[in-house]
Each structure stands twice: as structure tokens, then as C-alpha cells.
């Protein structure tokens, strides 16, 4: 095989052993890799109704055929498991160097089964796989954990550094919004870190000395030269290293779709031009991922004595949820809150969304002050920072917040104040400003998510006609990107006009498996449907393809999106039709046959 290395490493933590399996080339071609292939394995191997924290759940780290292939943006790995937040399928994507290193060690995928009796970490060096004790790492932050493992293994290695993915206290404490961190990059959403913690697995450490073979290296080199040429001419190469994703804040502000005060509003004073403020006052340096020249990853520093610190981020979505959504525009506090989430190993988006939900519950008198210990008003920067630490360690009121916004709002009797989909918090763009975004959030298989449908355009933002088919195609395209090992940021936003030509060409020159634009999109559709089947068997239904009452019924009060609600009812039936699903959102037998999923549908 080319592109794929053709091996899967399976580690059973209950038994403390491991085995290496061959990857079936037909399965690889049909599900590409990453999100697709891992979800197929999860679907086959676990009962979708299983408790996400039980040893029967599996945790899969999966690369795609383009991860580590040298394709620009080919740095990604995907963590797939049953989510303890949504109770459906989770797929959390991260960049950096970990995915390529897994590939260079000789594995397309790492499957972790069972549960260790004591805390452990995995040390993988090519064919040598060891389960090492990690009692001394338990309780440490993600930053401390990486540093300790590095110093521990440095003594025994002559080759260059190792790549590490780990959890922090949040994952250990089964915080339902815990993530997995790799050198500041997060496989962030849906609580994948909590599943890792439930298995007593603190970290995965990888060093690989092997390579990835290419089916047609000459064509590949020409293709990369072509992509590089387009990048050189793109204004993005100037702007991205300067501001990264921060320009998203100004964009959201401009359209009045910035998540504000638990999505009650769409804009807040004090954040216009935020990218310049962050650049001038907090920026230290830019970092990047394997084979990406865009340097979106920002290292920052806070000098304000109250919120002092240094670390990574925030990305724009993190800024939106930890900041304006909590009514906070104190930049130092927002950046600090982001560091704390990273150190605790917690999803910044869900953490912000959950605290915003608590603030609204408090302001409306549904959350008693005695439960928190102090008043919890929107705009309280000090409370934000304090509550994140408590959430990660499940201390005091943090224990309740650790359950996420959905469970919090339910506990206090007001589920309508939870702002999200399928129990997962919304990201930073308010869906009322883009109808298609509302549809995308509502239908995303992993719950509210900004990375599953990017086809939102400024000039058609209030239209519902034709949006269903557009969303469907974009979801399929993104499913194939996620599975290939490429990065969203490059192949979705910037290269929009020619992405559908370049991605299949990259897949084909690397794998030689016969990829075309058509069968790549079909694979994307197959992946979307297997996720749907998993969710249906896990107990989710069409009733979960919806948005909070506020988004559907309460018009945006002010700003450029004033007066809008999401008219989901105008789009959802059309969407099911475009998908080849029945009115209950269940894939029809014909559709499943077309996708080669008849057997899975009947299971």
C-alpha cells in the first residue's frame, strides 16, 4: 500500500498486551482513513449503546493516507470514540506533529481497548510498544506531563524528540468536555480526553523512524510545487502568520454573529479589531504544524499581574466562547482562561459555553448563589478564570460545570438555556446570522460544530432555499478531508475555488487507489452515513437534529443580524431528502445500498 502504511496497532490495557494487524486495502479505500476508517472500526467493534466510560468503549487515534505524506497541510490525526458528552460518535481532530509521527512509527491507526488498573502511558518506538507506569504523572497538567515524559525518556534516546498526546486533570476526572492535548494542539471537542482518563491512560508517546511511500512521487512533487506556487501568490501567506484565526473575531463582529451572553445577543463593544490588540499586546511567536507554512498557531504571553501567564492561543472560537459569550471583553482574562483550559486539558469552546450557561441561570435566578459561592454575573472575568480551574479538578461548583452545559441547565430545571446541539455547546458564530450554519449545527453528527459545514457565504446568509443541498455536499466533502489527514484551515477556507480538484489529486498520487472527485465525495457521504447509523443505534433520533428554542424563536435583538431566527423547518425536510433519508432522518435502504452500507444498516 502507498499513503497508508498498512498496519494497525491494537493495545489492550486490561490485559496489558498489544498486537499488530494488517489494514484491509478495500476498507481503507472506501473509508479513506482518519475519521472515516476509525468510525467504521468503532461501529464494528463496540455496541453503540455502551457506557462511554466503560472499558468496552474504544479510543482510536487515526491518521489518513495524506498524514505525513508531505502533502501541504497533511498533519492531522483524529481521535474517535463514543462521546461522554453527546452519547453519540466523537471525532476530534488535531494537528502538530503527532499524527505524522504515528505514521512514521509504522501505523495508520492506534486502537486502545479496555482499562488499565493503574495509571499508565504508552511508549511507542516503531515496533517496540511499552505500557509504562504513570502514577507519578497523575494530577499533572498537560504542560507538566509533556515536560516530565520528555525528560524521562531523553536519557534513553539518541534520536530527536518524541511526540506526545496527553490528558490533564480534566481527562483524569472524567470532565465531560475534556480534550487530548499535544504540544498546545487540542483534539478538543466531545470529551475524548475523559474517555482516555476513564481508561487510566495518561499519555501516548511516539517516535517513528520509518517513512511513507508514495504511489507516484513524480506527479506528487509536481502537485506540491503547484500548491506551493498558489500559496506564494496568496495574501493568506502574509495574513495567517500575522493573525492566525483571530480575524474571525472581527468577521463575527462585522456580521453581528459573535456569540454574546449565552447567545442572547450577536455583538459586544470592545472586540472590533481584536486581532490587532492580540497581536500588539499578547503575541510572542507563531508556530506551525507538519508541512504547513501558514503558522496559524500563536504563542502568547499575558503581563497583566492579575492574569499572568504564557502559553498557546486563544484561537478565535475559544476567544468567542470564553470572552463575549460570558459577557467578558477583558483580553488578559480571556487569554489566561484559554491557558488554563489547555493546562487542565479541557475544550475551550465547551468550557466557555458552559460557564455562559451558568451565568444566565444565575442572572435569571435559577442558580442559587450558595451553589457557586459568590454572585455569577455576565462579565465577571475573575470568576471565569477561577471556575475553569475548579471545573478541571471537579472542585466545588466546578463538579457541576464539569458535566457540561446541557446537564447543568437540566439540573437547574431550565434545559432551554443550554446553547448547543446534541448536548454539545455551540462554537463562536451565532447561527442566526447564517441560515446554513444553523442547519449545519443542527445536523452535525458530533453535535454543534463549526468544522462540519463551512459553505456559508456572506451574500446568501439569510436565505434558506438551496441551503440543504449545499450543506449536504459540504459535509461530505469535509468528511473526506477529515479522513484524508489534511487540514481544514487550508483546504476549506482559502483554496475554495479549486479544492475539489486538488484534494482527490493529492489522494490519488499518494495512494494510487483510484480516487476521483466523485468517489472521494461518495466516500465522504459513506462516512457521514456510518456516523449517522452509529448515532441512531446509540439512541439519538431526528429529535436531536434541532436547535435551542432561543435560536428558533427569539429574534436577534440588535446589530446587522437584527430580527433573524434560524428557519430550520424550511431546511430540514429538504436536507433529509438530499441525504436520501426518510422523514425520520433514517437512511433509506436504497441509500445504504448505494453506499455499500446495507450490512451496517441491518445490524
Amino acid at each position: 500500500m502507498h499513503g497508508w502504511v498498512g498496519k494497525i496497532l491494537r493495545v489492550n490495557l486490561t490485559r496489558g498486551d498489544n498486537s499488530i494487524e494488517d489494514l484491509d486495502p478495500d476498507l481503507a479505500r472506501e473509508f479513506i482513513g482518519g475519521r472515516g476508517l476509525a468510525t467504521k472500526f468503532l461501529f464494528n467493534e463496540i455496541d453503540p449503546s455502551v457506557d462511554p466510560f466503560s472499558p468496552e468503549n474504544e479510543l482510536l487515534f487515526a491518521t489518513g493516507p495524506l498524514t505525513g505524506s508531505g502533502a501541504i497541510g497533511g498533519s492531522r490525526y483524529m481521535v474517535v470514540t463514543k462521546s461522554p458528552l453527546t452519547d453519540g460518535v466523537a471525532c476530534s481532530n488535531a494537528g502538530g506533529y503527532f499524527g505524522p509521527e504515528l505514521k512514521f512509527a509504522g501505523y495508520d491507526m492506534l486502537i486502545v481497548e479496555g482499562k488499565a488498573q493503574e495509571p499508565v502511558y504508552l511508549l511507542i518506538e516503531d515496533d517496540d510498544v511499552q505500557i509504562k507506569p504513570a502514577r507519578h504523572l497523575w494530577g499533572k497538567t498537560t504542560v507538566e506531563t509533556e515536560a516530565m515524559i520528555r525528560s524521562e525518556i531523553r536519557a534513553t534516546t539518541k534520536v530527536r524528540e518524541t511526540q506526545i498526546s496527553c490528558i490533564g486533570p480534566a481527562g483524569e476526572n472524567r470532565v465531560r468536555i475534556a480534550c487530548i492535548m499535544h504540544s498546545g494542539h487540542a483534539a478538543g471537542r466531545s470529551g475524548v480526553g475523559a474517555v482516555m482518563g476513564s481508561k487510566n491512560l495518561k499519555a501516548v508517546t511516539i517516535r517513528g523512524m520509518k517513512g511513507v511511500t508514495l504511489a507516484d512521487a513524480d506527479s506528487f512533487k509536481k502537485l506540491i510545487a503547484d500548491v506551493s506556487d498558489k500559496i506564494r501568490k496568496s495574501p493568506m501567506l502574509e495574513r495567517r502568520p500575522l493573525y492566525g484565526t483571530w480575524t474571525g473575531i472581527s468577521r463575527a463582529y462585522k456580521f453581528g454573529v459573535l456569540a454574546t451572553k449565552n447567545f442572547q445577543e450577536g455583538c459586544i463593544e470592545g472586540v472590533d479589531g481584536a486581532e490587532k490588540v492580540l497581536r500588539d499586546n499578547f503575541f510572542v511567536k507563531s508556530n506551525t504544524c507538519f508541512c504547513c507554512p501558514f503558522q496559524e498557531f500563536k504563542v502568547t504571553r499575558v503581563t497583566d499581574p492579575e492574569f499572568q501567564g504564557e502559553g498557546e492561543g486563544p484561537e478565535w472560537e475559544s476567544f468567542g466562547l470564553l470572552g463575549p459569550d460570558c459577557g467578558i471583553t477583558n483580553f488578559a482574562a480571556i487569554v489566561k482562561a484559554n491557558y488554563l483550559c489547555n493546562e487542565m486539558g479541557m475544550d475551550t469552546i465547551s468550557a466557555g459555553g458552559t460557564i455562559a450557561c451558568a451565568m444566565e441561570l444565575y442572572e435569571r435566578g435559577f442558580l442559587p448563589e450558595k451553589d457557586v459561592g459568590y454572585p455569577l454575573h455576565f462579565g465577571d472575568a475573575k470568576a471565569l478564570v477561577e471556575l475553569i480551574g475548579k471545573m478541571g479538578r471537579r472542585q466545588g461548583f466546578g463538579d457541576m460545570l464539569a458535566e457540561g452545559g446541557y446537564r447543568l441547565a437540566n439540573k437547574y430545571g431550565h434545559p432551554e438555556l443550554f446553547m448547543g446541539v446534541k448536548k454539545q455547546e455551540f462554537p463562536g458564530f451565532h447561527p442566526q446570522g447564517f441560515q446554513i450554519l444553523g442547519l449545519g449545527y443542527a445536523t452535525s453528527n458530533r453535535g454543534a460544530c463549526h468544522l462540519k459545514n463551512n459553505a456559508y457565504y456572506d451574500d446568501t446568509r439569510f436565505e434558506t432555499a438551496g441551503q440543504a443541498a449545499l450543506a449536504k455536499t459540504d459535509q461530505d466533502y469535509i468528511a473526506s478531508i477529515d479522513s484524508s489527514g489534511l487540514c481544514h484551515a487550508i483546504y476549506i477556507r482559502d483554496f475554495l475555488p479549486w479544492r475539489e480538484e486538488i484534494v482527490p489529486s493529492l489522494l490519488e498520487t499518494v495512494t494510487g487507489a483510484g480516487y476521483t472527485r466523485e468517489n472521494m465525495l461518495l466516500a465522504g457521504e459513506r462516512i457521514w452515513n456510518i456516523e449517522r447509523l452509529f448515532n441512531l443505534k446509540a439512541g439519538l433520533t431526528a429529535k436531536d437534529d434541532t436547535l435551542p428554542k432561543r435560536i428558533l424563536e427569539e429574534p436577534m435583538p440588535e446589530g446587522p443580524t437584527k430580527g433573524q431566527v434560524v428557519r430550520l423547518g424550511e431546511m430540514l425536510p429538504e436536507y433529509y431528502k438530499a441525504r436520501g433519508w426518510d422523514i425520520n432522518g433514517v437512511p433509506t435502504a436504497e441509500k445504504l445500498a448505494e453506499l455499500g452500507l446495507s450490512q451496517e444498516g441491518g445490524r
Partner: protein
Amino acid sequence: MARIKIDHNNCCECCLCEVVCSLQYSENTVNPKKSRIVALFRKPDVDTINCDHCGNDPQCIKACLSDALALIGE
């Protein structure tokens, strides 16, 4: 003697140079560990090892999108 110099101020550690270098030396295989040029985890004293500058047409310099590489000296 000519050599390839990495400007670590410009280098973003994306490793594209390592990728194209390894493709020059190991047939059809991307393996940064076999690259003659070392970009990741900055090693101030060693920029390249056993490098023949691809016959005076270094592929790593062509591939770099960050203006971090230059062929210097005679």
C-alpha cells in the same frame, strides 16, 4: 565551501524541506528522519549532513515557503 544555511528567525519548522530532501534520497518515500537537512527542534550547529546540494540546485530551498533557507559560500 558552499553550505545551506537555515535562518531560524524565518524557519517555522514545517519540515517541507525535510520532506523534499528525503524524497531525493529514499526512493518514493517521505521520511524526514532520512533527510540531510534538519529543521525541526532547532540544532544550531548542524543544518545539513552529507548534503550535496542536489547538484547545485537544492530542492529544500525551492520548497521552503518561509524564506528560511539559502545557499551560502563558494
